[in-house]
């Protein structure tokens, strides 16, 4: 199946792109997608403890299942206001 990966702020800078499309083997979790991403861009690993994740623009968890066509986002600590 195919998912869209969204990356923001410094995660985007480290990866070089804010939006990636990746084919993953079903069933898959957010954790599996993150693991594949860190294999591509090892510098991302530093964010595993502090980031948040979202699936289809709703906050989610690393353990959540991902379906074909989902948008999975990785969010570094926020700094709005």
């Amino acid at each position, binding site marked *: 199946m195919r998912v869209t990966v969204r990356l923001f702020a410094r995660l985007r800078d480290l990866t070089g792109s804010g939006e990636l499309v990746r084919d993953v083997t079903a069933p898959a979790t957010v954790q599996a997608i993150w693991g594949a991403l860190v294999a591509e861009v090892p510098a991302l690993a530093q964010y595993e403890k502090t980031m948040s994740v979202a699936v289809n623009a709703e906050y989610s968890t690393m353990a959540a299942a991902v379906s074909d066509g989902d948008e999975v*986002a990785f969010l570094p600590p*926020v700094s709005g*206001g």
Partner: protein
Amino acid sequence: MPLVALTAQPLDLQALMAEVGADRVGAIAAFAGLVRDHNQGHRVRFLEYEAYEPLAIRALGRILEEAGTAWPGTRLGVHHRTGRIEIGETSIIIVAASPHRADAFAACRYTIERVKQIVPIWKHEHFDGGEVWLEGATANPDDEDARQAAHRIACA
């Protein structure tokens, strides 16, 4: 004018106050965050705000619901800038209107604290000689300790 908005345009506090306070409620408390020309010892040139827009709008809406539950009868609006913002410009405006000034102040303060906790917006600071992404709180809307901390700050 929507009560919740992300916009690349300059923010209009007067207009948001008119929208939120349209039912003549007694007390309005408002907050505006302005871009400062210095931060942590260096001279800031400008900021850029990036947002995960659909989730940011949802998170702002959630905060307004939380505040509406905590301070019934209080009406709120919050607008956040995105994109490049110059020194002295406003990055966020919050308006809280209530029959009671204590509720208006509390709801306004709660909202800015919660924005900094759970809204997926990031500040990219461009200073003399470099740039840095500021990173504050790990966003977790279900972190009840964080929510209660915001509530304590707001109405202690």
